[in-house]
């Protein structure tokens, strides 16, 4: 029911809507956007009072993955998609807790049985050229329905919308789970009472309207070409020719993208200020070069994580141009709970106790970009504080971030190894990512210090997931470089896919440790059906504590993501998207 994770430099994103999807988020107007240490935070950057006009230049190393709102699922994609599209709900930049009605005209209504969600949409929102007409609820229905079209293959449609009635027969056209009684109302009918998670998912770009009469011919192609001809509802649109063609006009893969003002956007219907005249995105430069260009130049931002050396340079010489966003995800070590030595809970605890998590984080950039992870719900996710906050639960194997071999020895003995060292014959299969080789080496040497024989293989990150850690049949014992970013701020979005036994699948498995504790599974299934922020917070925090007690995995980094801007940019980062600069709120001084 959640999305996948991604480790590595670029963090994916998330989105979501909270329980009472009400107006929220407010336009924080802090007098200063920098913290005490001189670094910016998306929590305090002013969202109002920006100067209008001029063009922002974005220098990105990475390309978009996909700009079709029905497919986009990546941090960099999201910044362009949320500037050009309006889902039913979305986050304001400074919050990852409360979603605001976006295309929706107000909060959603959930029926008392938790099986029906009703959303009313705004009047007067229009598609960009060449469609030009007013958006209706049928456009939202089609946008979500096309998620089931194999040519679109939305990556999270099944995860979040499978409880819609008739889901199993959905192929891209109408199905009973979505109805539109009038032009401005859409109703979701659910087969089970999990309205909260479906409602949360309406903050994802899949709910941004798509005009069926225009998109259908593109959606008939394998794969869909709608993204290359898309129309916008947000303040900006990809530059397009008169036919609406974006590919080669406003987007040249691997090269550049151009966002221009959407002539049909009506500011009266939107909370985005949209200060900029346009956004010119250049793709593919060397990180060391574009980092310097941004720091020393003007009108520029980098919207993917800068090189380590650039973060250091920014911290030392351009501190006010550096933004660090908390709550950008989590990194942990998956250990095989199902078979091999780590099926033994005490060996898992011993590994946790012995691991020097401070050293692990130093390898990835130190305390500037990571806090020592002490449990699995991470900062900005509701329930984080209830589950122990930064300090985490008070268990002895968690209390020494630098690692404690005495505590590790205690658990080794409890596991049946009186010498404090593993004496079994098993050679552990350890598969890490080349992008995080140093962390993998530290984890590997920790295992060896506990007496394990190991065989460490370092492969490309995509290979690590696709061929090894995500395939239970490979029987990998330890995956030291896995990570997770939630789609929206809800404990379920962090814990369910990664730790619920029902989600173990033969390939593409995201429960890498094959954690399958019946008690925890049952608690998760129960918590999924809860409605209301407070109840969910408490339930998922309790599940987090159980996972720590079970040492289901070995956590090591609460990720904080850096981004940089030029000195004349009044950047506003999205807390909900790892701090990435929001084009609809950022302005030039």
């Amino acid at each position: 029911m959640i999305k996948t994770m991604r480790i590595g430099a670029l963090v994916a994103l998330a989105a979501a809507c909270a329980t009472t999807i009400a107006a929220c988020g407010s336009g924080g107007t802090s007098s200063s956007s920098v913290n005490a240490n001189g670094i910016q935070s998306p929590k305090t950057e002013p969202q109002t009072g920006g100067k209008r006009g001029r063009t922002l230049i974005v220098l990105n190393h990475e390309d978009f993955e996909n700009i079709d709102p029905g497919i986009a699922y990546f941090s960099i994609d999201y910044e362009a998609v949320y500037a050009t599209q309006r889902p039913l709900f979305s986050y304001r930049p400074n919050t990852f807790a409360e979603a605001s009605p976006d295309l929706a005209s107000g909060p959603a209504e959930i029926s008392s049985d938790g099986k029906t969600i009703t959303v009313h949409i705004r009047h007067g929102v229009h598609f960009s050229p060449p469609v030009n007409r007013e958006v209706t609820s049928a456009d939202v229905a089609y946008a979500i329905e096309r998620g089931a079209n194999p040519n679109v293959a939305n990556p999270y449609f099944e995860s979040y919308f499978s409880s819609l009635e008739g889901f199993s027969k959905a192929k891209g056209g109408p199905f009973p789970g979505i109805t539109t009684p009038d032009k401005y109302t859409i109703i979701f009918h659910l087969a089970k009472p999990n309205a909260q998670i479906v409602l949360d998912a309406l903050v994802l770009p899949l709910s941004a309207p798509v005009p069926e009469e225009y998109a259908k011919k593109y959606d008939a192609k394998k794969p869909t070409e709608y993204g290359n001809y898309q129309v916008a509802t947000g303040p900006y649109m990809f530059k397009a020719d008169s036919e609406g063609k974006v590919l080669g006009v406003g987007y040249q893969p691997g090269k550049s993208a151009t966002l221009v003002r959407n002539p049909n956007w009506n500011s009266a219907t939107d909370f985005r200020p949209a200060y900029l005249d346009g956004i010119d995105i250049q793709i593919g430069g060397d990180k060391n070069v574009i980092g310097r260009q941004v720091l020393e130049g003007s009108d520029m931002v980098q919207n993917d994580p800068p090189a380590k050396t650039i973060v250091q340079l920014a911290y030392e010489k351009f501190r006010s141009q550096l933004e660090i966003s908390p709550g950008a995800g989590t990194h942990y070590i998956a250990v095989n709970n199902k078979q091999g030595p780590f099926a033994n809970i005490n060996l898992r605890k011993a590994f946790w106790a012995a691991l020097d998590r401070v050293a692990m984080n130093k390898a990835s950039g130190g305390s500037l970009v990571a806090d020592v992870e002490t449990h699995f719900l991470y900062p900005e996710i509701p329930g984080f504080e209830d589950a122990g906050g930064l300090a985490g639960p008070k268990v002895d194997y968690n209390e020494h971030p630098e690692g404690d071999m005495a505590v590790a020895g205690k658990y080794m003995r409890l596991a049946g190894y009186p010498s404090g060292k593993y004496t079994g014959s098993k050679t552990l299969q350890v598969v890490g990512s080349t992008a995080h080789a140093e962390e993998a080496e530290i984890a590997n040497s920790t295992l060896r210090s506990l007496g394990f024989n190991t065989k460490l293989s370092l492969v490309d990150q995509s290979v690590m997931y696709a061929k090894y850690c995500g395939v239970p049949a490979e029987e990998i014992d330890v995956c030291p470089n896995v990570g997770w970013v939630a789609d929206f701020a809800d404990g379920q979005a962090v814990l369910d896919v990664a730790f619920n036994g029902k989600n173990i699948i033969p390939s593409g498995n995201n429960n890498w440790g094959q954690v399958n504790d019946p008690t925890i599974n049952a608690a998760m299934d129960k918590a999924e059906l809860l409605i209301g922020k407070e109840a969910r917070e408490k339930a998922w925090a309790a599940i987090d504590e159980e996972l720590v007690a079970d040492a289901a995995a070995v956590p090591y980094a609460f990720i904080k993501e850096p981004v940089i801007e030029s000195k004349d940019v009044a950047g506003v980062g999205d807390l909900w998207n790892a701090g990435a600069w929001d084009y609809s709120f950022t302005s030039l001084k």
Partner: protein
Amino acid sequence: MTRYIIRRLLWGALLLPLVSALTFVLFRILPTGDPARLRAGRSASPKVIAELRVDLGLNKPLIDQFWLYMKGIFLHFNLGYSYYSTAPVRGLIADRLPATISLTLGAAVIWLLSGLAVGIISAVWRRSKLDRAAMGTALVLISAPEYWLGLIALYLFAADIGQLKVFPGAGSYVGLTSDPWKWLTSLILPWLVLAATNAAIYARLIRGNLIETMGEDYIRTARAKGLTERRVILRHGLRSAINPVMTILGLDIGILLGGAVLVETVFEIPGIGRLNYDAITHSDFPIVQGTVLVAALFIIVANIVVDIAYAYLDPRVRFR
């Protein structure tokens, strides 16, 4: 001569399918990301992935996939769609080719001319201070990694982040047709960086060859006939000394037309090399396949041109 050229062309035509087949086999043998999964997104359900596998033809036996792949390329010139961006590969390559051609040909002119000049001067005044300085510099340039050289060039001379703001920096490249002056100035630094290593190699090669050639009997004869030293060197010595250089020039140009990854990346030039690099990191097979084919085509064509030129320059070759 005609038979010789036809023979070379036929070999070239045979090599292309072989290269395609090799790319196909390598991509499937080596551990890479699953294309269906890549296309589906990171948390797609097994059902969606299975459907995509059918759509992409990945459920078919390997031999059928291979046949479809070869048929697509050689009968329909269809290179398919990017798994990543869904853009047509043929269009992507056509879009990137002008930048790579601009970069390579400009750099080739620089390295050939400077390599020739320095090589001749060093050979004529060998063991002089000039020769030692030139060969010392050549050694440094050969040893310097291209990526590092690019960064240094930018930190020293780029208009945005350089200490001496002389040339346009990274990301300034524009197409020749959109603004010729900007095109020219934006390529000066990349040309110099790309040419540096090759110029140094060529200079050393020409120096060595020319020194050897100048000791030949026919050179002594030419001098005895009363020809000027300049004529002896340029008409008699250099013509023979340049033959091996012609061979590597063809190969170098062919290879670089297949993509100068590091220089394209450092200077943010959207060329074939960067397209290929990105495709490899994304396991985007259709693009890898397309760019490898283009690179192979250039290398084959360059080889044929070199062989023909070689045959023209050295009659012994065409009769082998």
